[in-house]
Protein backbone atom coordinates (compact mmCIF):
# COMPACT_ATOMS: atom_id res chain seq x y z
CA UNK A 1 0.00 0.00 0.00
CA UNK A 2 2.98 2.33 0.36
CA UNK A 3 2.60 3.46 -3.25
CA UNK A 4 -0.99 4.39 -2.62
CA UNK A 5 -0.11 6.21 0.58
CA UNK A 6 2.55 8.15 -1.26
CA UNK A 7 0.03 9.18 -3.89
CA UNK A 8 -2.35 10.33 -1.20
CA UNK A 9 0.30 12.41 0.50
CA UNK A 10 0.93 14.18 -2.78
CA UNK A 11 -2.77 14.61 -3.22
CA UNK A 12 -2.96 16.32 0.18
CA UNK A 13 -0.12 18.67 -0.53
CA UNK A 14 -1.52 19.49 -3.90
CA UNK A 15 1.61 18.29 -5.67
CA UNK A 16 1.29 16.52 -8.97
CA UNK A 17 1.07 12.78 -8.72
CA UNK A 18 3.77 11.92 -11.21
CA UNK A 19 6.58 9.41 -11.31
CA UNK A 20 9.23 11.78 -9.99
CA UNK A 21 7.26 12.99 -7.03
CA UNK A 22 6.11 9.51 -6.05
CA UNK A 23 9.62 8.20 -6.34
CA UNK A 24 10.94 11.00 -4.16
CA UNK A 25 8.48 10.31 -1.39
CA UNK A 26 9.07 6.59 -1.48
CA UNK A 27 12.81 7.03 -1.65
CA UNK A 28 12.68 9.21 1.42
CA UNK A 29 10.96 6.39 3.23
CA UNK A 30 13.71 4.11 1.99
CA UNK A 31 11.30 2.05 -0.03
CA UNK A 32 13.09 -0.01 -2.64
CA UNK A 33 11.10 1.73 -5.36
CA UNK A 34 9.99 -0.25 -8.34
CA UNK A 35 9.66 1.98 -11.29
CA UNK A 36 7.03 -0.17 -12.91
CA UNK A 37 4.68 0.14 -9.95
CA UNK A 38 5.12 3.88 -9.91
CA UNK A 39 4.35 4.05 -13.60
CA UNK A 40 1.36 1.80 -13.23
CA UNK A 41 0.06 3.83 -10.33
CA UNK A 42 0.31 7.09 -12.19
CA UNK A 43 -1.49 5.53 -15.13
CA UNK A 44 -4.15 3.99 -12.96
CA UNK A 45 -4.85 7.27 -11.19
CA UNK A 46 -5.11 9.27 -14.37
CA UNK A 47 -8.87 9.22 -14.56
CA UNK A 48 -9.67 8.71 -10.92
CA UNK A 49 -11.16 11.44 -8.81
CA UNK A 50 -9.30 10.94 -5.57
CA UNK A 51 -11.44 13.35 -3.58
CA UNK A 52 -14.54 11.48 -4.62
CA UNK A 53 -13.05 8.12 -3.69
CA UNK A 54 -12.09 9.45 -0.28
CA UNK A 55 -15.51 10.91 0.29
CA UNK A 56 -17.19 7.67 -0.58
CA UNK A 57 -14.99 5.89 1.87
CA UNK A 58 -16.03 8.30 4.55
CA UNK A 59 -19.68 7.83 3.70
CA UNK A 60 -19.55 4.11 4.36
CA UNK A 61 -18.96 2.90 7.89
CA UNK A 62 -15.58 1.24 7.71
CA UNK A 63 -15.59 -2.33 8.78
CA UNK A 64 -19.28 -2.68 8.28
CA UNK A 65 -20.10 -4.67 5.21
CA UNK A 66 -22.46 -2.35 3.49
CA UNK A 67 -25.60 -4.07 2.37
CA UNK A 68 -25.53 -4.43 -1.36
CA UNK A 69 -28.32 -2.62 -3.11
Amino acid sequence: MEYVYAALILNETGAEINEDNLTNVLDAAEVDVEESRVKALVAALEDVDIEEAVEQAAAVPAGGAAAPA
Partner: protein
Amino acid sequence: MSAERKTETIPQWKKEEVDDLVETLGEYDSVGIVDITGIPSRQLQKMRANLHGTAELRVSRNTLMHRALDEVQDGLEDLEQYIGGQVGLIGTNDNPFALYKQLEASKTAAPINAGEVAPNDIVIPEGDTGMDPGQFVGELQAVGAEARIQEGSIQVMADSTVLEAGETVDDQLANVLGELGIEPKEVGLDLRAVFADGVLFEPEELELDVEEYQADIEAAVAGARNLSINAVYPTAQTVSALLGKGAGEAKSVGLQAAIEDEELMPDLISKADGQVRALAAQIDDPEALPEELQD
Protein backbone atom coordinates in the same frame (compact mmCIF):
# COMPACT_ATOMS: atom_id res chain seq x y z
CA MET B 1 -67.00 -66.84 -13.07
CA SER B 2 -67.79 -66.08 -9.49
CA ALA B 3 -70.11 -63.35 -10.63
CA GLU B 4 -72.14 -65.90 -12.51
CA ARG B 5 -72.50 -67.98 -9.41
CA LYS B 6 -73.54 -65.08 -7.20
CA THR B 7 -76.24 -64.00 -9.56
CA GLU B 8 -78.05 -67.22 -8.83
CA THR B 9 -78.14 -66.52 -5.12
CA ILE B 10 -79.27 -62.91 -5.02
CA PRO B 11 -82.28 -61.10 -6.37
CA GLN B 12 -82.16 -59.52 -9.77
CA TRP B 13 -82.19 -55.92 -8.47
CA LYS B 14 -79.24 -56.63 -6.30
CA LYS B 15 -77.42 -58.17 -9.19
CA GLU B 16 -78.10 -55.10 -11.25
CA GLU B 17 -76.98 -52.82 -8.45
CA VAL B 18 -73.72 -54.74 -8.08
CA ASP B 19 -73.16 -54.73 -11.82
CA ASP B 20 -73.77 -51.03 -11.83
CA LEU B 21 -71.33 -50.49 -8.97
CA VAL B 22 -68.75 -52.63 -10.72
CA GLU B 23 -69.18 -50.60 -13.83
CA THR B 24 -68.77 -47.37 -11.89
CA LEU B 25 -65.65 -48.65 -10.16
CA GLY B 26 -64.16 -49.47 -13.53
CA GLU B 27 -64.41 -45.87 -14.63
CA TYR B 28 -62.03 -44.51 -12.05
CA ASP B 29 -58.32 -44.65 -11.38
CA SER B 30 -58.87 -44.18 -7.69
CA VAL B 31 -61.61 -45.63 -5.54
CA GLY B 32 -62.18 -44.83 -1.91
CA ILE B 33 -64.45 -45.53 1.00
CA VAL B 34 -65.98 -42.49 2.65
CA ASP B 35 -67.71 -42.28 5.98
CA ILE B 36 -71.04 -40.51 5.67
CA THR B 37 -72.20 -41.02 9.21
CA GLY B 38 -74.61 -38.37 10.40
CA ILE B 39 -74.92 -36.53 7.14
CA PRO B 40 -78.56 -35.79 6.38
CA SER B 41 -79.58 -37.00 2.95
CA ARG B 42 -80.34 -33.52 1.67
CA GLN B 43 -76.84 -32.37 2.61
CA LEU B 44 -75.44 -35.49 1.04
CA GLN B 45 -77.15 -34.59 -2.22
CA LYS B 46 -75.50 -31.21 -2.09
CA MET B 47 -72.10 -32.73 -1.44
CA ARG B 48 -72.59 -35.11 -4.29
CA ALA B 49 -73.42 -32.19 -6.54
CA ASN B 50 -70.33 -30.29 -5.40
CA LEU B 51 -68.15 -33.23 -6.32
CA HIS B 52 -69.54 -33.36 -9.80
CA GLY B 53 -66.78 -33.31 -12.33
CA THR B 54 -64.06 -34.48 -10.01
CA ALA B 55 -65.48 -37.46 -8.18
CA GLU B 56 -68.52 -39.68 -8.04
CA LEU B 57 -70.12 -40.76 -4.80
CA ARG B 58 -72.17 -43.95 -4.67
CA VAL B 59 -74.10 -45.02 -1.63
CA SER B 60 -75.40 -48.52 -1.49
CA ARG B 61 -75.90 -51.34 0.96
CA ASN B 62 -72.65 -52.37 2.56
CA THR B 63 -73.15 -55.96 1.47
CA LEU B 64 -73.49 -54.91 -2.12
CA MET B 65 -70.42 -52.75 -1.94
CA HIS B 66 -68.54 -55.73 -0.52
CA ARG B 67 -69.76 -57.80 -3.40
CA ALA B 68 -68.83 -55.23 -6.01
CA LEU B 69 -65.30 -54.71 -4.65
CA ASP B 70 -64.87 -58.43 -4.40
CA GLU B 71 -65.95 -58.83 -7.96
CA VAL B 72 -63.55 -56.26 -9.36
CA GLN B 73 -60.59 -57.60 -7.39
CA ASP B 74 -57.34 -56.02 -8.68
CA GLY B 75 -56.61 -54.94 -5.15
CA LEU B 76 -59.90 -53.14 -4.67
CA GLU B 77 -60.93 -55.97 -2.35
CA ASP B 78 -58.46 -54.46 0.13
CA LEU B 79 -60.94 -51.65 0.60
CA GLU B 80 -63.52 -54.02 2.05
CA GLN B 81 -61.95 -53.79 5.50
CA TYR B 82 -63.00 -50.13 5.60
CA ILE B 83 -66.69 -50.86 4.96
CA GLY B 84 -68.71 -50.48 8.13
CA GLY B 85 -71.33 -48.15 9.48
CA GLN B 86 -72.62 -45.62 7.01
CA VAL B 87 -70.22 -45.47 4.13
CA GLY B 88 -70.18 -44.81 0.43
CA LEU B 89 -67.89 -45.54 -2.47
CA ILE B 90 -66.14 -42.67 -4.10
CA GLY B 91 -64.39 -42.78 -7.43
CA THR B 92 -62.13 -40.21 -9.05
CA ASN B 93 -59.62 -39.86 -11.81
CA ASP B 94 -57.97 -37.17 -9.78
CA ASN B 95 -54.95 -37.74 -7.68
CA PRO B 96 -56.09 -39.27 -4.36
CA PHE B 97 -54.22 -36.56 -2.50
CA ALA B 98 -56.21 -33.96 -4.34
CA LEU B 99 -59.41 -35.85 -3.55
CA TYR B 100 -58.53 -35.94 0.12
CA LYS B 101 -57.79 -32.25 0.11
CA GLN B 102 -61.04 -31.44 -1.61
CA LEU B 103 -63.04 -33.50 0.84
CA GLU B 104 -61.30 -31.98 3.82
CA ALA B 105 -61.86 -28.49 2.48
CA SER B 106 -65.54 -29.14 1.99
CA LYS B 107 -66.12 -30.16 5.58
CA THR B 108 -68.22 -27.78 7.59
CA ALA B 109 -68.44 -27.14 11.28
CA ALA B 110 -71.53 -28.32 13.14
CA PRO B 111 -72.75 -28.14 16.69
CA ILE B 112 -72.40 -31.22 18.86
CA ASN B 113 -75.35 -32.60 20.80
CA ALA B 114 -75.54 -34.13 24.21
CA GLY B 115 -74.85 -37.83 24.01
CA GLU B 116 -72.51 -37.53 21.05
CA VAL B 117 -68.90 -38.58 21.24
CA ALA B 118 -66.34 -35.82 20.74
CA PRO B 119 -64.45 -36.52 17.49
CA ASN B 120 -61.57 -34.39 18.72
CA ASP B 121 -60.65 -32.40 21.81
CA ILE B 122 -63.19 -29.70 22.46
CA VAL B 123 -61.60 -26.39 23.35
CA ILE B 124 -63.18 -23.21 24.57
CA PRO B 125 -60.83 -20.54 23.30
CA GLU B 126 -59.36 -17.71 25.29
CA GLY B 127 -61.15 -14.43 24.84
CA ASP B 128 -64.09 -12.24 25.63
CA THR B 129 -67.36 -14.16 25.35
CA GLY B 130 -69.18 -10.88 24.91
CA MET B 131 -71.69 -12.00 27.50
CA ASP B 132 -72.80 -9.87 30.38
CA PRO B 133 -71.85 -11.00 33.85
CA GLY B 134 -74.29 -13.58 35.14
CA GLN B 135 -74.65 -17.17 36.12
CA PHE B 136 -73.12 -18.26 32.81
CA VAL B 137 -69.69 -17.67 34.28
CA GLY B 138 -70.44 -20.42 36.76
CA GLU B 139 -71.58 -22.74 34.02
CA LEU B 140 -68.37 -22.12 32.14
CA GLN B 141 -66.34 -22.86 35.23
CA ALA B 142 -68.37 -25.98 35.84
CA VAL B 143 -67.46 -27.47 32.48
CA GLY B 144 -63.82 -26.68 33.08
CA ALA B 145 -63.26 -23.34 31.35
CA GLU B 146 -61.06 -20.82 33.07
CA ALA B 147 -63.67 -18.07 33.06
CA ARG B 148 -64.06 -14.92 35.09
CA ILE B 149 -65.76 -11.57 34.95
CA GLN B 150 -63.53 -8.84 33.74
CA GLU B 151 -64.13 -5.41 32.28
CA GLY B 152 -67.85 -5.89 32.41
CA SER B 153 -68.13 -9.16 30.60
CA ILE B 154 -67.43 -12.84 30.91
CA GLN B 155 -63.97 -13.67 29.68
CA VAL B 156 -62.15 -16.93 29.18
CA MET B 157 -58.63 -16.41 30.40
CA ALA B 158 -56.92 -19.24 28.53
CA ASP B 159 -57.69 -21.87 25.94
CA SER B 160 -59.51 -24.53 27.94
CA THR B 161 -59.92 -28.11 26.85
CA VAL B 162 -63.30 -29.05 28.23
CA LEU B 163 -63.63 -32.50 26.73
CA GLU B 164 -61.18 -34.91 25.26
CA ALA B 165 -61.65 -36.80 22.03
CA GLY B 166 -63.65 -39.97 22.55
CA GLU B 167 -65.56 -38.72 25.56
CA THR B 168 -69.28 -38.17 25.52
CA VAL B 169 -70.81 -34.73 25.57
CA ASP B 170 -73.26 -34.18 28.45
CA ASP B 171 -76.25 -31.83 28.59
CA GLN B 172 -74.42 -29.12 30.45
CA LEU B 173 -71.50 -28.96 28.04
CA ALA B 174 -73.77 -29.12 24.99
CA ASN B 175 -75.65 -26.18 26.43
CA VAL B 176 -72.53 -24.13 27.13
CA LEU B 177 -71.11 -24.82 23.69
CA GLY B 178 -74.43 -23.87 22.18
CA GLU B 179 -74.48 -20.58 24.08
CA LEU B 180 -70.97 -19.81 22.88
CA GLY B 181 -71.75 -20.84 19.34
CA ILE B 182 -68.90 -23.33 19.31
CA GLU B 183 -69.30 -25.98 16.64
CA PRO B 184 -66.73 -28.64 17.39
CA LYS B 185 -67.79 -31.19 14.84
CA GLU B 186 -66.52 -31.35 11.31
CA VAL B 187 -69.21 -32.68 9.09
CA GLY B 188 -68.47 -33.97 5.68
CA LEU B 189 -67.32 -36.89 3.64
CA ASP B 190 -64.64 -38.54 5.69
CA LEU B 191 -62.22 -40.51 3.57
CA ARG B 192 -61.31 -43.78 5.24
CA ALA B 193 -59.06 -45.15 2.51
CA VAL B 194 -58.33 -44.84 -1.18
CA PHE B 195 -57.03 -47.42 -3.57
CA ALA B 196 -55.20 -45.71 -6.40
CA ASP B 197 -53.29 -47.45 -9.17
CA GLY B 198 -52.37 -50.37 -7.03
CA VAL B 199 -51.56 -48.43 -3.89
CA LEU B 200 -53.74 -48.26 -0.80
CA PHE B 201 -53.66 -44.95 1.05
CA GLU B 202 -55.04 -44.17 4.48
CA PRO B 203 -55.96 -40.60 5.43
CA GLU B 204 -52.76 -39.85 7.33
CA GLU B 205 -50.80 -40.70 4.18
CA LEU B 206 -53.01 -38.47 2.12
CA GLU B 207 -52.46 -35.36 4.15
CA LEU B 208 -49.67 -33.44 2.45
CA ASP B 209 -47.42 -30.94 4.12
CA VAL B 210 -47.19 -28.50 1.25
CA GLU B 211 -44.82 -26.28 3.13
CA GLU B 212 -42.43 -29.13 3.54
CA TYR B 213 -42.50 -29.79 -0.16
CA GLN B 214 -41.87 -26.14 -0.81
CA ALA B 215 -38.94 -26.22 1.55
CA ASP B 216 -37.62 -29.34 -0.15
CA ILE B 217 -37.78 -27.65 -3.52
CA GLU B 218 -35.96 -24.63 -2.23
CA ALA B 219 -33.32 -26.82 -0.67
CA ALA B 220 -32.94 -28.79 -3.89
CA VAL B 221 -32.58 -25.66 -5.99
CA ALA B 222 -30.14 -24.11 -3.56
CA GLY B 223 -28.13 -27.30 -3.43
CA ALA B 224 -27.96 -27.48 -7.20
CA ARG B 225 -26.84 -23.86 -7.35
CA ASN B 226 -24.17 -24.52 -4.77
CA LEU B 227 -22.94 -27.51 -6.68
CA SER B 228 -22.93 -25.63 -9.95
CA ILE B 229 -20.95 -22.77 -8.50
CA ASN B 230 -18.64 -24.75 -6.26
CA ALA B 231 -17.82 -27.21 -9.01
CA VAL B 232 -17.58 -24.35 -11.51
CA TYR B 233 -20.09 -25.92 -13.86
CA PRO B 234 -21.74 -22.86 -15.33
CA THR B 235 -25.42 -22.91 -16.16
CA ALA B 236 -27.57 -20.09 -17.40
CA GLN B 237 -28.79 -19.57 -13.84
CA THR B 238 -25.42 -19.64 -12.13
CA VAL B 239 -22.97 -18.23 -14.61
CA SER B 240 -23.64 -14.71 -13.35
CA ALA B 241 -22.78 -15.76 -9.85
CA LEU B 242 -19.62 -17.41 -11.13
CA LEU B 243 -18.61 -14.28 -12.98
CA GLY B 244 -19.33 -12.28 -9.87
CA LYS B 245 -17.29 -14.70 -7.85
CA GLY B 246 -14.37 -14.38 -10.24
CA ALA B 247 -14.61 -10.63 -10.27
CA GLY B 248 -14.81 -10.57 -6.49
CA GLU B 249 -11.76 -12.76 -6.21
CA ALA B 250 -9.80 -10.56 -8.55
CA LYS B 251 -10.85 -7.54 -6.55
CA SER B 252 -9.85 -9.12 -3.30
CA VAL B 253 -6.44 -10.08 -4.66
CA GLY B 254 -6.07 -6.67 -6.22
CA LEU B 255 -6.83 -4.87 -3.00
CA GLN B 256 -4.62 -7.04 -0.86
CA ALA B 257 -1.73 -6.70 -3.25
CA ALA B 258 -2.49 -3.00 -3.84
CA ILE B 259 -2.30 -3.65 -7.55
CA GLU B 260 -2.07 -0.47 -9.56
CA ASP B 261 -5.20 -0.96 -11.62
CA GLU B 262 -7.55 1.79 -12.58
CA GLU B 263 -10.58 -0.14 -11.48
CA LEU B 264 -9.11 -0.84 -8.08
CA MET B 265 -7.94 2.68 -7.39
CA PRO B 266 -11.11 4.03 -5.83
CA ASP B 267 -11.21 1.09 -3.44
CA LEU B 268 -7.52 1.30 -2.67
CA ILE B 269 -7.87 4.98 -1.91
CA SER B 270 -10.85 4.23 0.27
CA LYS B 271 -8.87 1.56 2.00
CA ALA B 272 -5.96 3.93 2.65
CA ASP B 273 -8.31 6.60 3.88
CA GLY B 274 -10.03 4.13 6.16
CA GLN B 275 -6.69 3.07 7.55
CA VAL B 276 -5.67 6.63 8.26
CA ARG B 277 -8.92 7.22 10.07
CA ALA B 278 -8.63 4.00 11.99
CA LEU B 279 -5.14 4.87 13.06
CA ALA B 280 -6.11 8.41 13.93
CA ALA B 281 -8.89 7.05 16.10
CA GLN B 282 -6.21 5.42 18.24
CA ILE B 283 -4.42 8.68 18.77
CA ASP B 284 -5.49 10.75 21.75
CA ASP B 285 -3.33 13.80 21.26
CA PRO B 286 -5.08 16.35 19.07
CA GLU B 287 -1.73 18.03 18.48
CA ALA B 288 -0.71 14.99 16.50
CA LEU B 289 -3.63 15.15 14.15
CA PRO B 290 -4.82 17.53 11.47
CA GLU B 291 -8.18 19.13 12.05
CA GLU B 292 -10.08 16.83 9.74
CA LEU B 293 -9.04 13.81 11.77
CA GLN B 294 -9.85 15.21 15.18
CA ASP B 295 -13.02 14.11 16.86
